[in-house]
């Protein structure tokens, strides 16, 4: 049992909130909504991982699937996206297979890597064009929590949302930050004149 669950039980039994280490520190951030509560299935997460892997594939370093971006994405969709973004994303998840069947007569998961790349490249162009028309050309680079509940106006194309989430979830993951990029937890010094050779990885932050 998780420590916080034990604390919850004690609180329920005694009516007194525990004053322990947790109450005297930086607060723990609320957990992400579970995939199930957010209305996503394991199949949805697999599909998102495969979409992610098509956007950021394994090369000489691991890709999006290795970082399990799908699992992180659904939590961000449920908690950080506004309802209009969520709606666009959810209908987009269904639309992927519709597009896939129209182009290749098969659902996305049954496509070859080449076919997946071809399909999503097409969607990427459509999404870019649509976003730019409504002044959302930068949306792919915005943080998934960028939009506010009060914001009116169009939301980005669903593929932009998928790409935004894939990039964000991958490069903030341990795999993405330490294997595809470089990360040193405790650098210990600053060198502002370090030699760089083409091919050296960028720092994660």
């Amino acid at each position, binding site marked *: 049992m998780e420590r916080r669950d034990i604390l919850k039980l004690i609180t329920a039994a005694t009516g007194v909130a525990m004053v322990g280490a947790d109450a005297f520190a930086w607060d723990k951030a609320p957990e992400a909504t579970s995939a199930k509560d957010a209305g996503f299935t394991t199949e949805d997460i697999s599909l998102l991982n495969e979409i992610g892997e098509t956007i950021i594939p394994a090369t000489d370093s691991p890709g999006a699937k290795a970082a399990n971006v799908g699992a992180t994405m659904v939590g961000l969709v449920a908690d950080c996206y506004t309802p209009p973004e969520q709606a666009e994303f959810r209908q987009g998840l269904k639309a992927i297979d519709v597009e896939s069947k129209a182009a290749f007569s098969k659902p996305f998961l049954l496509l070859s890597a080449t076919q997946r790349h071809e399909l999503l490249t097409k969607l990427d162009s459509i999404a870019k064009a649509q976003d730019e028309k409504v002044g959302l050309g930068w949306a792919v680079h915005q943080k998934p929590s960028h939009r506010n509940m009060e914001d009116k106006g169009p939301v980005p194309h669903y593929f932009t949302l998928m790409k935004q989430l894939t990039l964000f979830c991958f490069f903030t993951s341990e795999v993405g930050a330490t294997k595809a990029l470089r990360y040193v937890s405790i*650098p210990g010094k600053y060198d*502002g004149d370090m030699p760089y050779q083409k091919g050296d990885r960028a720092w994660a932050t």
Partner: protein
Amino acid sequence: MANNEYDAIVVGSGISGGMAAKELTEKGLKVLMLERGRNIEHIKDYTNAHKEAWNYPHRDLPTQKRKQEEPVIQRDYPLNESTNGMWASHQDSPYVEKKRFDWYRGYHVGGRSLLWGRQSYRLNEEDFLANAKEGIAVDWPIRYEDLAPWYDYVERFAGISGSRDGLDVLPDGQFLPPIPLNVVEKEVAQRLQKAFGGTRHLIHGRSANITEPKPEQNRVNCQYRNKCWLGCPFGGYFSTQSSTLPLAMKTGNLTLRPFSIVTRVLYDKDKKRATGVEILDSETNQTYVFKSKIVFLNASALNSTWMLMNSATDVWEGGLGSSSGELGHNIMDHHFRVGASAEVEGFDDKYYYGRRPSGFYIPRFRNWHDDKRNYLRGFGYQGSASRDGWNRNIAEMGIGAGLKDAITEPGTWRIGMTAFGEMLPHHDNRIYLNKDKKDKWGLPVLEMDVEIKENEIAMRKDMKDDAVEMFERAGLKNVNGYEGDYAPGMGIHEMGGARMGRDPKTSVTNKFNQVWDAPNVFMTDGACMTSASCVNPSLTYLALTARAASYAVEELKKRNL
């Protein structure tokens, strides 16, 4: 001594409160430090200090639910997962915005000393003279020379890294070696020197991050993680927890009481002295009285002012210090969120190692020496140069291995800077009690009526145009000026409310930060500032606090308080 009696009470445990407690306890006084929030122990309670982005449920992003719950702190960077709970909750501690005012507060032991930006600059000689010369507000009752030795003292103690640049606009101090500039920043600095005939200076930021260990304070030098706001397990930056509190504790003279909301300063109208404070225990809602010979109010500018407004109301309806007509007035901040960015060509064979907690600084040059503008005072820039990371736009790249290969390598060098401008003290920029709205403890809350006016608006044009001009004349490409939204308070440099002055009729506190109407009450946080300068203010609070504490102890010995 009864257990509710002390020599001194310090209200607040942030940057200035910690310094007051250290100075007073080291001089032998029995001190009670009161903090409205919870305790946070150095290192042990820095629970996120070793977490990475992937350890947070939403990768450190705020959720929509949290944004709704925290309508104020969500307006800027404070709302995230890594500092969850470290910025005061609007739900428990609301305030009223007659005009928009962003108030970011740290209600816990250490206050915002755990969360601050750590940039540390001295005010200059002109900063103390400008009000009098220009007929603005009132004259400072002190001059640079009065504070200079105290700047020396607190810089040596806190540990400020920086370079000695020999500029009259930004006096040098007692510095540890600077946090290095990178190769591109050095190049731009040289180009600016050349382009502006030596009148514009891009220098090392001066920061309260130590570049050499301070074994006497058990502090290790900065490890270049740039995670200061999580509490530093190395003691790499100056905070109450890393520096002042351990030394105050070591004297055996300090009692720290968290969960203690000071509701008023108790006042003896016959002796014209404070006798102590009344507190509300924020957990039990019990009221307690603590007595002392002197009181230091260091609860942050607006909260220290609030305390005076709630005190001695049987003598003055507007509270202790209101006889001047200036209590709660002349509220200031630094206005910012305007500047420029640009691309720097070349340097493709250069990169950097480590994450600095500070960058470069360009001190004020407007209305300095022979320069004259259509507004008063000036501004400085803070900035840095770095190479683009993964989250950059590569227009021709769609998806797949090509995209991944491209964005996992560093991109173009880019430099950016943001101006921080001086805000003039205006009598009608004010805060006052709103007795209709109450906080979680039933206490009246503050209402904010503060705005930037013509002088700041005129200055903002230069803040942007000058940034663009400097980058263009330095030969940089794709120069973009920007101006984001700014509301007072966003700078998190709240100042004023109980300004220092030479006359009790026009100021709340005197040249030693004593409240004119109760000389054993000292205000040494941002509330006492007579003008704002354009430099980050905390170092000045430290110097004023150390000076006032020394004076208070001398006066106590002479039985003058």
